[in-house]
């Protein structure tokens, strides 16, 4: 029996970061956490992608199970993206993780209060994998995947 047939479906994560280098890093990091990954270079593109899944007849595969976004991005910050997601009736239940190189308690508090599931410091390390994996497990159980 092929073990992959009893494996749960992989979680689909949308990773948002304006830096190509950091997107590449994040994508691999998430793939190593056993996720399916789609990347977006800014908040606007992320919102576009997220809206796609709400179109009738769209493949179930597009459904995003988690968003992980950089905070410091031009035009739309990670916090602003978080707000938009939480304001949307169709998207508000998607867990959002914010990553930032800035360890600013007021920013962290603001993001968590706005509904971010987690705030993590960049650059991500192997030790962060544990934290992320346990959130992913939680999300997997929530959506029955």
């Amino acid at each position, binding site marked *: 029996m092929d073990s992959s047939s009893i494996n749960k479906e992989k979680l689909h994560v949308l990773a948002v970061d*304006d*830096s*190509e*280098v950091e997107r590449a890093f994040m994508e691999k990091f998430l793939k190593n956490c056993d996720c399916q990954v789609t990347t977006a270079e800014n908040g606007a593109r992320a919102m576009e992608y997220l809206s796609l899944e709400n179109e009738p007849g769209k493949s179930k595969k597009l459904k995003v199970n988690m968003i992980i976004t950089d905070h410091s991005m*031009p035009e739309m910050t990670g916090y602003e993206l978080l707000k938009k997601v939480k304001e949307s009736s169709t998207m508000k239940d998607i867990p959002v993780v914010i990553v930032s190189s800035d360890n600013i308690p007021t920013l962290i508090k603001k993001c968590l209060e706005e509904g971010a599931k987690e705030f993590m410091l960049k650059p991500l390390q192997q030790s962060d994998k544990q934290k992320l994996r346990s959130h992913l497990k939680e999300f997997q159980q929530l959506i029955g995947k």
Partner: protein
Amino acid sequence: MDVVLLQRRFSEYLTSLFNEGFLDEQFKQLQELQDENSPDFVFEVVTLFFEDSERLLNELAKALVQPSIDFQKVDAHVHQLKGSSSSIGAGRVKDVCIHFRNFCEEQNIEGCLRCMQQIKHEYSLVKNKLENLFRLEQQVIQAGG
């Protein structure tokens, strides 16, 4: 040359890069992400870093020769460079970026120009070192390692 000797040359060179601060712990994170699914991951991300850095250094050079320097623009570019250098573990480049950002905040032209020179220098050093590293790695692979 004997593959064991080549491997030793590679390891010793890599260690020296850590000892001299060209690379920091984050580079190890990059190495840990590399696997059979992405056997050239480190090389690919570092290549992205080179391309991205060269673009940013050009933008910085342009921004710093303007009659009236837009410090916010300069800071935005340095912030990007700090992020990407931090992600791949280019410690010395990252450190100069931190100083550079402080000078941007102070709107200190002298300081910014000095940092620009330093960053160009550190970047060309780490680029050279990493290219040597990849060359040594290729020699190991070609010798059957």
